[in-house]
């Protein structure tokens, strides 16, 4: 039974590899950030599947850390690359 969860985790890893293409060809910075955001969610799912397949309870905490770090990454991205006049005021 746990082989199914391992195969599922491997499949999600392959989708991450496919999504890396968007990081390479993404025309804008926002596209690359969105692809990285998708990888974080997929990585969370992989962590949860591995925690079930290998019976490692601590990996679920790793998944939680992934989620919290991802939102911090997006907040830092938006703050750092903010346009000159936030709010659209001329």
């Amino acid at each position: 039974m746990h082989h199914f969860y391992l195969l599922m985790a491997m499949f999600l890893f392959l989708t991450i590899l496919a999504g890396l293409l968007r990081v390479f060809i993404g025309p804008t910075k926002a596209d690359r950030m969105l692809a990285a955001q998708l990888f974080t969610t997929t990585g969370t799912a992989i962590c949860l599947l591995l925690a079930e397949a290998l019976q490692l309870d601590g990996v679920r905490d790793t998944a939680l850390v992934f989620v919290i770090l991802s939102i911090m990454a997006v907040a830092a991205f938006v703050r750092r690359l903010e346009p000159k006049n936030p709010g659209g005021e001329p």
Partner: protein
Amino acid sequence: MTIWNIFSILFCLAGGAFFLAGVVGMLRFPDAMSRLHALTKADNLGLGFIVVGLCLRSLVVPVIIKLLLIWLTVLLASSTACFLVGNYILQEAEEKPQEN
């Protein structure tokens, strides 16, 4: 193989299908705003189905609560992140309208 295991496999497969759809949308949608749509689908539904599948597999109450809390955190984080990135894209488009 109990009935719970079969439902667990079905839910996990559905989650994997949504992740696949998210990646395909991320690769094929034309602009960043529609890619946001693909991203939120994978975030909310894909991870949600996988969490439900794993809950049906474990059937232990603390583990189920933890999995549901992780999914709730992902929902909050992904909606906040998509709002921030969408706002960023809109502001950038207002600054450089000739490039669209």
